[in-house]
């Protein structure tokens, strides 16, 4: 595919960064799409030659909203290189902090980033629920928006109790964590989580966590919505109603292939159950058929990205990150490489987690209707409902085991290589690390947004959201709200202001910018 790239330029390796999406439109419908990361920050290059532990300080700075996920991936790689198994309390504390970060991200993304589009007065002039949407989601004044700012901020106090601050702490170290909160602080943490859970039940779900667990099919979801005014008026219920009125179930299909690295290693002594030693299991899926994960099948293609050309896709242990912006501007259009699993395009995120963990509601939805903006966003909206209970259990275990170890001494990092592969809020995140003489010799990172927002590969296959954009109606190219829904359902970044950048070099073509701007 040859494309004139004038107008979209440059970098990203911090894949949760600035993006510009270019689409081609025929008769008001997207017929082709190109996703470009427009910022290059060079983190992988920066890591080479630094101290063995420096990934714990440097990589959280890749992303301000999921700094702990980078910390977790970095520390799991170092644990593996050191051959150390962190004590149970360290597992609990690391998991709790990461879960808090994920939960706040899900709630902020859902209300402050996704739903706020429904308060777009121009785009939704005709929508019956417009006034209500504005009353709930208008920035800084909508009542749901205000509540989310306040509740998520208080939830994040829990990370500060565990690790000193949020964002950008480095309390996870190979062998465990740097401190154990005092018992009074653990009790405070418990109150923080309880309080947040009560708010989430009352406001977002409109029912108890327990009632929600019974929603295990499309029919059960419909029945849930019918059941009470409380359900319909909750943020989730309101989302489902708006989704019906605006056709979100028909929007944003994507590759129907999913990837999850699994997450949250279980303490040895715990009542929480999981599979393969983790609370969430790793795997990949074609539709609803789930397969085990084989990490050797991951490779990055750079045929359409501004990096030094390679003959074939490379596994991240062999990968390189050398910016190279000249010479082939015809087909190259992004600073994001194209990660592929066994050569295939996959989507990652909460929806992938739900499918690979075998959540019946999502197996039914994907089995019957396939992926869409509705299912993808629903998965994010309700993910906290599946983790808050487990957080309570781990806090109680911490309280009972408050005198136990939280760190196994691991001062020198031996030579070696390992990968830290986890689920970030936005999906599969991997750090591939090599250490020699207490120095980092190799660091490659594949972020969730690289999977979802990748450019084409050598075979011409579009990345996940490029593919999902095809068929999206664009009623007003100055205010392309449907394209915004599609991209935002993948939660590309903390900020994803979809906006029209250029009116078009040729009729019917425009560029959307998604990102930090």
């Amino acid at each position: 595919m040859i494309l004139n790239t004038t107008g979209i330029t440059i970098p990203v390796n911090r894949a949760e960064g600035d993006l510009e999406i270019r689409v081609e439109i025929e008769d008001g419908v997207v017929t082709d799409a190109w996703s470009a990361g427009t910022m290059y920050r060079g983190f992988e290059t920066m890591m080479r030659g630094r101290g063995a532990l420096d990934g714990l300080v440097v990589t959280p700075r890749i992303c301000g909203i999921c700094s702990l996920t980078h910390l977790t991936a970095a520390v799991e790689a170092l644990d593996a290189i050191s051959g150390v198994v962190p004590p149970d309390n360290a597992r609990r504390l690391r998991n709790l902090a990461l879960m808090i970060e994920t939960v706040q991200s899900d709630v902020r993304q859902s209300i402050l980033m996704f739903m706020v589009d429904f308060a777009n007065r121009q785009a939704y002039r005709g929508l019956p629920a417009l006034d209500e949407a504005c009353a709930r989601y208008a920035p800084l004044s909508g009542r749901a928006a205000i509540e989310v700012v306040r509740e998520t901020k208080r939830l994040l106090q829990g990370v500060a109790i565990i690790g000193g601050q949020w964002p950008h702490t480095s309390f996870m170290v190979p062998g465990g964590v740097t401190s154990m909160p005092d018992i009074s602080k653990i009790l405070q943490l418990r109150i923080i989580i309880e309080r947040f859970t009560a708010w989430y039940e009352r406001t977002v779900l409109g029912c108890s966590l327990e009632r929600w667990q019974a929603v295990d099919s499309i029919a059960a979801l419909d029945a849930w919505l019918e059941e009470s005014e409380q359900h319909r008026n909750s943020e989730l219920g309101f989302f489902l109603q708006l989704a019906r009125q605006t056709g979100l179930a028909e929007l944003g299909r994507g590759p129907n292939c999913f990837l999850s690295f699994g997450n949250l290693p279980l303490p040895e002594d715990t009542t929480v159950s999981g599979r393969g030693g983790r609370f969430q299991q790793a795997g990949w899926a074609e539709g609803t058929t789930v397969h085990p994960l084989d990490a050797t099948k991951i490779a990055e293609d750079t045929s359409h990205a501004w990096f030094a050309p390679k003959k074939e896709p490379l596994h991240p242990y062999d990968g390189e990150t050398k910016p190279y912006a000249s010479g082939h501007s015809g087909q190259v259009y992004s600073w994001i490489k194209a990660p592929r699993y066994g050569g295939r395009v996959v989507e990652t995120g909460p929806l992938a987690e739900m499918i690979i963990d075998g959540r019946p509601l999502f197996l039914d939805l994907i089995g019957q209707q396939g992926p869409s903006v509705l299912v993808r966003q629903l998965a994010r909206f309700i993910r906290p409902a599946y983790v808050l209970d487990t957080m309570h259990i781990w806090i109680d275990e911490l309280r009972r085991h408050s005198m136990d170890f939280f760190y196994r001494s691991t001062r020198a990092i031996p030579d070696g290589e390992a990968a830290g592969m986890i689920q970030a809020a936005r999906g599969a995140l991997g750090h591939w690390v090599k250490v020699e003489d207490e120095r980092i010799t190799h660091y490659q990172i594949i972020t969730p947004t690289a999977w979802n927002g990748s450019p084409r590969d050598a075979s011409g296959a579009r990345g996940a959201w490029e593919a999902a954009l095809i068929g999206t109606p664009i009623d007003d190219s100055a205010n392309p709200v449907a394209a915004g829904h599609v991209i935002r359902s993948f939660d590309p970044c903390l900020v994803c202001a979809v906006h029209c950048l250029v009116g078009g070099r040729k009729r019917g073509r425009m560029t959307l910018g998604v990102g930090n701007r």
Partner: protein
Amino acid sequence: MMHPQKTVYWLQGGGCGGDTFSFLGSEFPDVIELFRRLNLQLLWHPSLSNSSPADHELLLSNILTGEQPLDILLVEGSVICGPAGTGMFDTKNGQPKKELIYNLAAQAGLVLAVGTCACFGGFGSDQVTEATGLQFARKERGGLLGVNYRSKNGQPVVNLAGCPCHHDVIVGALISAATEVAWELDEYQRPIEWFSTTVHQGCTRNEYHEYRVEESDFGEMGCLFFHMGCAGPLVPGPCNKLLWNQQSSKPRAGVPCFGCTDPDFPRATPFFQTPNIEGIPISLPMGVNRAHYMVYKGMAAAAAPEHLKKRTSKV
């Protein structure tokens, strides 16, 4: 008390968004109260605004022509100038974002650099991305805007350092800006209100520092300065004075201070280690005399009380 309305524009360059998320963590006031009570009109914030693409472009062009007055410009993230000074590693509409930052700064009543990247370049101030701060490149004056830059109200860029910048500092600076309270700035243009005390001040491990009872591995009680790379006594910052998220700080949780408010952050030497010569840190606390410090520390270690040596005192 109602203040005259002021307009605010928040721009992100080469950064991670961490300052925005720090800002959202403010409690008194929280961001909602802040804008309401101070009568600040938020023209645009990338995480909070929902104006349509076309409206945002119109707003930008109105600011750039001077038609829309801009009282306060906040910039988060570094100014990326690579490769080879072109700025093409960070673009908007195919144009280097550094040009937009430059042009907005020319219209602004006051410019606040939020976070160490915007102040001094931070991550990326290396050969590859050639990032710089607004009025400094690391310790060197100049940056994108140049030594002589003054905003419309006559002030240099105010540097709210930190990676990320502390929420109370961002909010406090906006309150000062909205109410026209004047700042006193240090040599790196940081308000001394928050950047004259060190991170060390207020640290709960201070007693251990005083008697040189040191941590030599993670998870111990003790001071993190001599072996674990803590920069708390070396750099100014309010982390232990204000506390994070109304709760704690890194040193309180056993994580060394990485010196993130310093123009030279991130430092080149490994984190979690204290560069030293024969056990004596190369960098000594801000402003101390080496000879005096050595004598004092030697005597202090000898005088250390039992409860500290046995580490029975909680941190």
